[in-house]
């Protein structure tokens, strides 16, 4: 769509503030990340920590293309939340991956310094890759990208966002690396 969201869609301060996360541009995500990688999920596993207070999900990826830095051929992303031993812990917006899912990840080392990585911006550094019937790869991280419709005026307002072609994302990451 990128079209009409709702009749109440008059304001939408898209880029200024957020209640859970503050939208980051591709350039900001790149600057805050040690690695930017196009990768494919292999498997996920959730388990309690040693203190049995938090559940973490670790997902193993294979590197398909390095856009910033050089990631290992396989690496692991560690996220809070998951299901284990009859319990589920969750943080809204934190998304897991299914085996085979292709994604572009903006990464930084986990606080645990155990060789695993965290997603930059909690959820924002996770761009799902979708391929159209013509083969074009589209990436999106779900950050605001909308055309708002004001029923009072009948006008459409455009907002820039984070849904783009994979080619465009790679170009912007490359440019940001040079800044």
């Amino acid at each position, binding site marked *: *769509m990128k079209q009409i969201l709702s009749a109440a869609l008059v304001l939408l301060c898209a880029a200024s503030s957020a209640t*859970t996360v503050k939208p980051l541009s591709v350039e900001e995500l790149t600057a805050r990340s040690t690695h930017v990688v196009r990768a494919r999920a292999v498997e996920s596993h959730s388990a309690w920590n040693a203190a049995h207070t938090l559940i973490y999900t670790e997902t193993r990826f294979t590197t398909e293309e390095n856009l910033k830095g050089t990631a290992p051929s396989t690496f692991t992303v560690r996220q809070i939340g998951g299901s284990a031993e009859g319990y589920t812990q969750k943080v809204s917006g934190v998304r897991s991956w299914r085996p085979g899912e292709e994604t572009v990840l903006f990464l930084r080392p986990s606080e645990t310094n155990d060789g695993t990585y965290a997603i930059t911006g909690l959820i924002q550094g996770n761009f799902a890759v979708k391929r159209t019937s013509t083969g074009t790869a589209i990436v999106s991280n779900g950050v605001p990208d909308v055309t708002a419709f004001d029923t009072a005026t009948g006008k459409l307002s455009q907002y820039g966002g984070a849904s783009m072609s994979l080619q465009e994302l790679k170009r912007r990451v490359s440019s940001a690396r040079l800044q």
Partner: protein
Amino acid sequence: MNEYRRLPRTTLWLIVLFILASLFFVVRLITTPKPVYSAQVQLTRNGSGAPSPDHWDFSSFEVTYQFNTTVGSNIPSGSSAAVSAVQHAFATWKSAPNASVQVSQGANTPLSAPAFDGVNLVCFVCQADFAKDSSTLAVTLTTTADAVGQDTKHNTTSRFAGQILDADIIFNPAVQWVTNGRPGSNQEDLQTVATHEVGHFFGLDHSAVVRAVMFPFGGATLTTLSYDDLAGLMQLYPKSSPDFATGKISGTVTFANGGGVFGAHVFADSTTNSSPAVGGIRKSTIGALTAPDGTYTIIGLPPDNYTVGVEPLDGPVTNSNLAEYAPAYNQSSVQTNFNTRWH
């Protein structure tokens, strides 16, 4: 719940353009209630694999929230102001009409890390992995039981899948917070963010309605609930004697071949300039997502005239923002291969 009598009682057909293949979908509104939730609530899959809405059982054990009142220099107005802002956020949800939530403030705690420990922690200087990432303002971590009989940490056992047992609200100490509702550049309003996070505390997920508190990318200051937020709350914690009557709209969104559209955002929007039914609640669109068979129910509609629309979740709120929804139905993602249509 009372039905609103002016709502259409018979079938209403909506035609949705299938953008990719230039086919048409048919959206049929029917009067039979279907098991899809208005606004969006967090879901946990029960033992049979069916999604169960996350919520507290206030009769199982006393639900309290406890502050670690320590604040850093990132909250220049100080600890009392920070605590007050969060107290106001809880009060906003507790005083919502048509819903019954029973939560109170407990004793302060020295704890500083989120954990499933029987303490519903609210803290401003916490040990969390996102602390060095100022783009994440706050998170709420909830722990739910996947089945009956799980230890609740309160000398009881869980009564249903999806029962919330613990919820911790963690504010990022790397963010510059204000408590006066007037954030400047590179500042955030604490009560605004707290109001959103308390919604998660009660089991609400992100909403695709832009003016809802539970919309994941809100404006600078937003501390009052919308119709959409209220619809989510009253569905989880219905009041035995509602403060005002509301209605509902149920229906099915299908492709032209009859197959249900999963994860379509269906929303009801007032066509009048009527005032909100109750003070303190903002008038807004009320939305719902469709189940795998395309069915949906929008509840909590105050008496009014409405149009109904359906749109794909492809921005600004997407499948990524409602991370639990598709897995709860054992689906990989919501369907977005259709175009928005108003009726």
